[in-house]
């Protein structure tokens, strides 16, 4: 009798817990509530280094929040208990309808918004109700630059420093605008659209310099990173990412950890003759900075063209991570994640600086949720890979050999001339593309909004004509195992495993925001802005925006002392090009194969560009 009643008790408890937690399947069969995969580990967490992640003053001055790229706001007024009451405080229409990837910046009561092409810069006065516009600045970039931007005419953000706003325009200029008056202070032309160069990245401003890199790995561009003087805009140094050591700024300080990256003039020797001049390896992603060592960390893009048979060799220095001295640009180390890249697995994803418990003390590392599907933990002093763990489904690589540092491709997934290779996972956008993860020092977890896509790929001879694409591949992407195209993972970097996972129907192309109140925010491509519990992924609140969300959400302290959450919607980017570029869904190879994966997107969202700011009711 007791046993039977015990069974009923257990069954009842299970039924109740099911009802309470988010076990319910949503109407869409691929979006599901969080699957808890591991307990939240106790013990020492990883922590961002104090110099690179100073105490939070309630502002948001750069897209990554700080030089360590934590994207973590220490504000904690909004908690899982009260986020359900989050309400709209004000909105603002940016007047653009292309992919919106940039966050708004907030500095002492003024909000700055940088739009995709035509790259308007707005300043909104947060001290007045409705946040009226203080000024707007129009850089007027060349319209033809839209024809050489591979993946929508996005802009990944501006940076505030020392009374000025710094940002890049699509046609390859860098601007410095006075933050109070909106007047241009200086501008410098760095990129050349005739060669297919554009600039979409957010600059890094540190040590009196503005660091800028180019885009165009699909256009046969030669990649570089440059430092401009913050005061005058003059070029201080420029390091290429391919070519002879002299131009890549590899000198006496350069000590790569692994043998495969050591040698003289590898930027020439690991390519067929002259191929490095049009070899890609651009700098279109994220830069991080360690003020203690004065090292800038950034990744390089894929080598060009996508067809690997046209570029035998390791193709240095593409698809890898550089550490450079910010004063001189001289490289200190380099690690190539994907030598002789086969699948357009760039390495430009965000680089989160952290100090992890190691033995008795702490070891300074980088966290990198890589494009190729591996979560790398790399010692940031010398480039040694401490671990490379898959955080998505991978069948195109067998693993990373930690002795040699070299990734091991799976031979049956290697593209062959004239043939289509099927079921390559992860697809070209990888297990995660540009959209950065957030790292919470409170929970110690890295919050990764990413994708689950596989692809078929066929290669053909790419013809180089400057100013036109240099690709040589036809791609068709589709959902990976499980059928869900997006997934949100909370990753424990110390124990190297996911803590919880949320499946999403559409790919997740938005960055994540972590807050001190243990609420994490992210957006979906059909416009749902979601708040989840940082500890277990439970969905706490959501809001349907007018367009899909691919932009960085931020959290700031308003002039009234309240915590605000802001995000700008506007679907687009590589994943949303079918909507923002009004593409035809009947061609599955459109947008380098992405159209096949998101044929349903035009029915689920439309183009737009609206800022939403939320706060708890007073």
């Amino acid at each position, binding site marked *: 009798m007791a046993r039977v009643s015990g069974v009923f008790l257990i069954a009842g408890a299970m039924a109740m817990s099911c009802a309470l937690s988010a076990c319910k399947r949503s109407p869409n069969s691929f979006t599901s509530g969080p699957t808890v995969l591991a307990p939240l580990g106790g013990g020492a967490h990883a922590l961002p280094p104090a110099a690179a992640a100073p105490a939070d003053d309630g502002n948001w001055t750069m897209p990554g929040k700080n030089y360590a790229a934590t994207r973590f706001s220490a504000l904690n007024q909004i908690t899982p208990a009260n986020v359900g009451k989050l309400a709209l405080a004000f909105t603002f229409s940016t007047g653009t309808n292309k992919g919106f990837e940039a966050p708004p910046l907030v500095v002492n009561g003024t909000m700055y918004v940088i739009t995709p092409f035509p790259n308007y810069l707005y300043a909104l006065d947060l001290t007045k109700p409705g946040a009226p516009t203080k000024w707007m600045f129009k850089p007027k970039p060349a319209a033809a630059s839209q024809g050489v931007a591979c993946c929508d005419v996005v802009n990944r953000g501006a940076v505030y420093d020392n009374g000025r706003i710094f940002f890049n325009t699509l046609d390859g200029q860098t601007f410095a605008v006075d933050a109070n008056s909106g007047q241009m202070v200086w501008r410098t032309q760095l990129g050349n659209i005739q060669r297919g160069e554009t600039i979409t990245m957010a600059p890094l401003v540190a040590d009196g310099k503005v660091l800028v890199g180019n885009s165009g790995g699909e256009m*046969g561009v030669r990649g570089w990173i440059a430092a401009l003087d913050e005061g005058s805009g003059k070029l201080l140094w420029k390091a290429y990412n391919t070519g002879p050591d002299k131009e890549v700024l590899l000198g006496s300080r350069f000590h790569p950890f692994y043998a495969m990256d050591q040698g003289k003039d590898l930027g*020439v*020797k*690991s*390519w*067929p*003759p*002259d191929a490095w001049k*049009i070899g890609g390896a651009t700098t279109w992603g994220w830069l991080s900075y360690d003020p203690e060592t004065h090292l800038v960390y950034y990744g390089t893009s894929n080598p060009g063209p996508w067809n690997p048979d*046209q*570029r*035998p*060799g*390791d193709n240095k220095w593409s698809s890898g991570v550089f550490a450079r001295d910010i004063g001189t640009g001289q490289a200190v180390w380099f690690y190539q994640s994907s030598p002789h890249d086969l699948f357009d697995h760039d390495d430009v994803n965000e680089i989160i600086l952290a100090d992890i418990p190691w033995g008795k003390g702490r070891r300074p590392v980088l966290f990198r949720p890589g494009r190729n599907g591996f979560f790398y933990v790399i010692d940031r002093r010398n480039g040694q890979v401490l671990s490379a763990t898959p955080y998505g489904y991978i069948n195109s690589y067998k693993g990373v050999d930690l002795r040699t540092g070299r990734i091991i491709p799976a031979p049956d997934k290697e593209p*062959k*001339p*004239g*043939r289509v290779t099927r079921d390559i996972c992860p697809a070209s956008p990888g297990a995660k593309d540009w959209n950065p993860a957030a790292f919470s020092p409170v929970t110690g977890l890295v919050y990764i909004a990413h994708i689950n896509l596989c692809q078929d790929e066929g290669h053909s*001879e*790419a*013809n*180089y*004509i*400057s100013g036109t694409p240099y690709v040589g591949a036809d791609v068709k992407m589709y959902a990976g195992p499980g059928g869900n195209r997006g997934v949100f993972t909370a990753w424990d970097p110390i124990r190297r495993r996911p803590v919880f996972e949320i499946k999403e129907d559409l790919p997740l192309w938005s960055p994540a925001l972590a807050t001190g109140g243990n609420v994490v925010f992210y957006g979906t491509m059909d416009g749902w802005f979601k708040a989840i519990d940082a500890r277990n992924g439970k969905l706490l609140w959501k809001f349907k925006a007018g367009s899909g969300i691919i932009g960085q959400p931020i959290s700031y302290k308003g002039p009234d002392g309240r915590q605000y959450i802001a995000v700008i919607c506007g679907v687009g980017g590589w994943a949303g090009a079918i909507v923002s570029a009004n593409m035809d869904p009947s061609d599955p190879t459109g947008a380098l194969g992405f159209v096949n994966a998101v044929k349903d997107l035009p029915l689920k969202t439309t183009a737009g560009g609206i800022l939403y700011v939320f706060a708890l009711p007073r």
Partner: protein
Amino acid sequence: MSGRRYARAALLPLLLGACSYQHYQSDFGAAATEDRQFLTLFWIFMAVCGVMYALVIAFLIAGLAHRRTEAEANVVETGRHHRSHPLMRTTLIGWTALIGVGLAALAIASFFADRSMAEAATNEKLSITLTGNQWWWDIVYNSNDASKTMRTANELHLPVGVPTRILLNSADVIHSLWIPSLGGKQDLIPGRQNDITFVPQKIGIFRGQCAEFCGTQHAHMALVVVVQSYPDFIKWWDHQLQPAVAPRTPLQLAGYQYVTNGPCSACHNIGGTPASGTVAPDLTHLASRKSLAASTMPMSEGNLYGWVEDPQSLKPGVKMPTIGLEPDKLHAVVAYLETLK
């Protein structure tokens, strides 16, 4: 037969023999191990079949000349052939045995020839990737050192005595590589990579031909094959790796400007210049080649003028368009192209 006819008949073998003088494109060229293996097999077949043929003719003549006796009158109907002549039975048994031995000899010879040709592909020292296009040959010399990879077109250089494996791709339709003096045919099939191996044994210049109908200009898709000593070959390879010669005179400079900025650079590659097209033959060392347009014409200044000005009248249907250059531009372009040695 009359005397004149006798004379003509006697000339025939001489004429047939004359074909073999053209050793640059002849199955009898014996310039590589593969061709020699083929020739050995050929002569074995010739010998066996020749002997059998001679015997058959001899028996036929004997049969015609022999006068039938009474006893042999109904030999066939009554089935008593062996009784028509004492030797008949022995002869028939011997003849059957001869056929058996002959066929066995041919089968064994053919088996071993096939096997050795197939085995040659496993220990190559040089690897070349040959891509067939309509109607030219794209040749890439592969190397373990990526920066020594070299691309050229329409002229294949091979070192003597070195096993060379040629990987065969096609960019559009089915072609077939056939260098008679070196070996047999192998198809270039789109979507599949075939290969063929040669071990050249004779230094010289040979001619290859596309052997699978591939479009309008299939007949003008030939390949010049130069077999050199190993040091000469390495010297040639190193020379081909050099970037194109810089223009020196104003006329050459004008030609350079037009070639690198105009339509030529949309398709052609000239190493060391902004022209980096990949869909047409590599021109970096165009003037060092022996022929133009996949052996449509020998390389000469006049042919170069004609080809650049109007390729469609020399090789109608070819993918290179007739631009219709004005005379000044034509002089400049040819002046520049001639420097690309």
